[in-house]
C-alpha cells in the first residue's frame, strides 16, 4: 500500500524497517525531520534514539553500536557532516559497517539551509583523513530515500564499510508516494567479528582497531586496502539511463537535479533533440562502466548540479575518455528544464565551450 510521505520521514522509517536500532544525531536543517521522526518511532521499534551533544558524539556512538553488531545510523548536513568525517575514517579503518546520511544544503562554511548539492566533494572523495573511499548512494525520490537505506546497510555489511546516503534538501523535504519496504529484523550476533565478549575463537579478545596500529607485522596492509577498494569499485557501480540509446548529448545528474534533467529529456525529445540522461545512483564508485559505453559515440556530456563551481563534473571529465564535457552548475537555483533544453541546443550548435 502506498503512502504519502515527506522524503526525510521515508528515509527514517526505511531505517527502522531495515533493522536500524540505534540512531544518534544532532539537529541541522534540512535533515532534522529524520531526527524528529526517529525520536518518537525508534523507541516503538525497541531501538535507541539519542540526541547527542554534538555530531562528534553522534558518529562515535554509532561507531560503538555498529562495532557491537547493531545496524546503526546517523544523519547530518553540510557543516554538521564535516564533523562526522573523522568518525567515517575510523569506521573505514576498523572495517565496521554503518550508514551515514547527508541531506545536503548549500554553500561553504555555515552556508545556508536552502536547496543545494554542495557536499559532493567531501562525500565522494574520502572527506576525512587517510585516503579511504565510501560507497555513496544518491536517492532521487521519496521512494528511493526509503529503499536506499536497505541497500546501504546491505552494502555496508557485505563489504564491512561505512556507506553514505547523499540525499538533498529537495528530496528530503518533498512529499511523495512511497511503498514502504517490509521490515526486517537484524541479529546483533550475525557476525563473529562484532564486539560481544571474548570466546573460544578469540581467547585474548577481539581487538577492533586500526590494523596498522595494533599489528605491526601486518605487511599486507597496503595490498589489503587496495584490494578492498578495487573490489567495491568493480562491484558496486549503479546507474539509471534515460533515452540513452541514440543520444547525441547525455546529461549527467543525480538527486534533485536528475529529476529536472528527466523532464528536460522529455521536452528535448519532443523537439526532436536527441538528449538523454545518465543518472549515477552510486557517486562512489562513479558509474564509469556506463560512461565507457558512450565515450566517443556522443557529442558531449552535460554535468548538471546545484553548487557554485561544479564538483561532480570533475568525475565526469575523469571518465569521459576525451568526449567533451560541459558543465552547468546551477548554484542556488534548481535547474530549469526549459533552460536546459536551450542550453543543450546551444551546445549542439557549437555555441558553448566545453570545460574539459
Amino acid at each position: 500500500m502506498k503512502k504519502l510521505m515527506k522524503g526525510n520521514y521515508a528515509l527514517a522509517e526505511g531505517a527502522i524497517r531495515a533493522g536500524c536500532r540505534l540512531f544518534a544525531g544532532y539537529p541541522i536543517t534540512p535533515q532534522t525531520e529524520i531526527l524528529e521522526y526517529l525520536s518518537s518511532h525508534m523507541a516503538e521499534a525497541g531501538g535507541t534514539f539519542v540526541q547527542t551533544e554534538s555530531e562528534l558524539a553522534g558518529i562515535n556512538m554509532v561507531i560503538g553500536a555498529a562495532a557491537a553488531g547493531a545496524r546503526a545510523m546517523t544523519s547530518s548536513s553540510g557543516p554538521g557532516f564535516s564533523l562526522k568525517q573523522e568518525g567515517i575514517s575510523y569506521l573505514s579503518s576498523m572495517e565496521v559497517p554503518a550508514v551515514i546520511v547527508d541531506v545536503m544544503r548549500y554553500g561553504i562554511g555555515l552556508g545556508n539551509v536552502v536547496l543545494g548539492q554542495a557536499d559532493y566533494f567531501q562525500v565522494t572523495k574520502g572527506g576525512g583523513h587517510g585516503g579511504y573511499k565510501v560507497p555513496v548512494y544518491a536517492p532521487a525520490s521519496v521512494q528511493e530515500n526509503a529503499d536506499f537505506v536497505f541497500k546501504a546497510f546491505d552494502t555496508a555489511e557485505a563489504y564491512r564499510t561505512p556507506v553514505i546516503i547523499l540525499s538533498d534538501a529537495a528530496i528530503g523535504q518533498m512529499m511523495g508516494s512511497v511503498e514502504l519496504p517490509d521490515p526486517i529484523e537484524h541479529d546483533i550476533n550475525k557476525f563473529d567479528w562484532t564486539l560481544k565478549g571474548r570466546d573460544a575463537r578469540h581467547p585474548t579478545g577481539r581487538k577492533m582497531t586500526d590494523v596498522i596500529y595494533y599489528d605491526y607485522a601486518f605487511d599486507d596492509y597496503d595490498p589489503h586496502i587496495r584490494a578492498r577498494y578495487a573490489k567495491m569499485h568493480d562491484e558496486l557501480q549503479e546507474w539509471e539511463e534515460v533515452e540513452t540509446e541514440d543520444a547525441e548529448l547525455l546529461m549527467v545528474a543525480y538527486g534533485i537535479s536528475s529529476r529536472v534533467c528527466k523532464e528536460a529529456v522529455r521536452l528535448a525529445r519532443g523537439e526532436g533533440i536527441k538528449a538523454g540522461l545518465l543518472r549515477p545512483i552510486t557517486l562512489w564508485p562513479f558509474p564509469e562502466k556506463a560512461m565507457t559505453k558512450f565515450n566517443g559515440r556522443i557529442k558531449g556530456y552535460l554535468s548538471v548540479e546545484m553548487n557554485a563551481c561544479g564538483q561532480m563534473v570533475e568525475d565526469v571529465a575523469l571518465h569521459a575518455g576525451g568526449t567533451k564535457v560541459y558543465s552547468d552548475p546551477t548554484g542556488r537555483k534548481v535547474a530549469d528544464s526549459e533552460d536546459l533544453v536551450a542550453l543543450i541546443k546551444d551546445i549542439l550548435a557549437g555555441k558553448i565551450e566545453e570545460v574539459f
Partner: protein
Amino acid sequence: MAITKQIPDTIFAANSFCPGCGHGIVIRLIAEVLDEMDLSDRTIGVLAVGCSCLVNRTLAVDLMQSAHGRATAAAAGIKRTRPGNLVFTYQGDGDAISIGIAETLYSAQRDEKITQIIVNNGVFGMTGGQMSPTTLVGQRTATSEKGRNSEINGDPVNIMKLLSQFNTAYLARGSVHDAANILKTKQYIRTAFELQMRGEGFTCVEVISPCPTNWHMTPDQAVERIANEVLEVYPLGEFVKGEHQK
C-alpha cells in the same frame, strides 16, 4: 596467612609502557577485578588515543580503540546495544578531560550505564609530555617550559568536581603511587563495575598515576611527587556513592 598472588588470567602479555608507569598497575587491577567477578567473557573495553591504546596488547578482553576523546560516546553505543555486557572506557587525562570533555560530561549527564576509567598523570604522555588540563600550576612540561602559568593556561581541571554536578552512580579518585592506595583503587574499580552490572548508571574512577618518563624523574621521585604535591590538588576518595537518584 595464606597469600596467593598470581598474574591475572585476563592479562595475556607483558605491557609495553615505560618503566615505573602507573598504567601497568591500573590494567592489572582491572584484570584482577574482572577475574574475581568472572566477567572477562562479558567485557567490552573502549580505549582512548594515547598511551592507553597499548592496552590492546596486554588485556584479554574484547577491545576497540576510539577516536581521540570519543571513548565514552562509543562505549554508550556499545552498552545500549549490549546492555548485559560490562562496558568500560580506558582513557588518559588528555583524552577524557581535554578533547573529550564534552563526551565525558554528557555521558555522565545522560547517566550512561558505563564505567569510565581516567588515568590522570598530568601530561600528554604518548606525544612526549605536553601540558594537559590536569597539569599542576608551576609544573614544567614540553609546552609549559617555565611551568604552567594559571594566568595564561588557567587552573587544573578537577574532573570529579565537574562530574559531581550530574546525577551519577559512582565517582571515585584513587592513586597507584603506593600499595595502600593501589588496593583502595582496586576496590573503587570493583565497586564501579558492580554498580554498572546492577544497572545503576554512570560510574567513573579517576586514577592518579606516575609518568616518570615525561616528568623527567626516576620512578621513586615520581611517586614521591604524587604523595607530596599532586594529591594536594587532587584529593582521593569516593565522591558519589549510593546517592544516585533514579
